[in-house]
């Protein structure tokens, strides 16, 4: 063993073998990143709830018109004012849509801000614009539209 201890040459063969192995591991990790990048990008396309947000938005817009027509119908046989009926119907719609989203793990808040008419009265052709606040959160994506301006005039 004496000669072994005095051998100060440095076992370059074993050393170069070690260095090459380390280089191979480094390259493999790099190639792995590229593979993971591809996975994450397609996953992003799957994860982003584009259709859900669009459906929530469009459906609320359509409903603002449907609720306006329904409030006029109800107002013919009831003595509440049209804005009150509208607010109640909208609350009913809000609670249904929030529950239907909650069963999928999405928090949605749709709330009426104001009912506007250009000439101040709330007759059949006067209600023009409804302001609504829409919020959507599914844990990864947060969407807000405050206010969403919906034109319901004829």
């Amino acid at each position: 063993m004496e000669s072994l201890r005095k051998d100060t040459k440095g076992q370059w063969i074993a050393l170069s073998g070690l260095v090459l192995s380390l280089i191979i591991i480094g390259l493999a990790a790099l190639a792995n990143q590229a593979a993971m990048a591809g996975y994450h990008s397609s996953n992003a396309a799957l994860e982003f709830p584009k259709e859900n947000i669009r459906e929530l938005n469009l459906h609320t817009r359509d409903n603002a018109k449907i609720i306006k027509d329904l409030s006029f119908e109800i107002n013919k046989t009831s003595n509440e004012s049209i804005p009150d009926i509208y607010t109640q119907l909208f609350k009913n719609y809000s609670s249904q849509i929030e529950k239907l989203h909650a069963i999928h793990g999405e928090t949605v808040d749709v709330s009426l801000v104001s009912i506007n008419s250009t000439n101040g009265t709330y007759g059949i052709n006067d209600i023009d614009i409804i302001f609504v606040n829409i919020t959507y959160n599914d844990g990864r994506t947060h969407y807000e539209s405050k206010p969403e301006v919906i034109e319901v005039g004829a």
Partner: protein
Amino acid sequence: MNDKAQLHTLEGLAAAVLMTMTVLMITNSTMMVTPQNEMAIDVQLKQMASDALTVIDIVPKSSAQSNNAPILHNLTACVASWDVTEEATYPVNTLDNLEDGLSYLLPNVLYNVDLAYVENGNITQKKVIIKGSPGKSAVVARHFVTLTNQTVSDMNGTWNLDDDELRVVEVRLTAWKV
């Protein structure tokens, strides 16, 4: 002849063994061979399912449709015409006009359709079209429709809504490739 023992052979052997083991270890770990194309198929199917519901939702209610294709019924009209007392059991489906539209737009795809709505503060889910048990990479698309008593009675459905009631129904399409 040198009679001093040298380590060169063993060094060379050790270096060779080390490099070979590294490469073997790397190829055996599954990280580098993730198939990328699997993700692309999911995105395509999810988009198709969502598109099918979107197209059925925006079809105009009047019958202005081309003669080259079967008539697609608007989604609100389909849901309004549903008979609330009938729930689908395999293989009988209960919403034929929606079934016709979907099978035309999504050939080679199997799907289930459920309806969910809030009644008296509770959520009810009913199956309307069943074509089997969803496969491993099934995707889900959702659309909402609003029903009033007027729309329901126009389509002869049996939803039994009050005159001042608004019901929001979620149409859930689960699709998978066989």
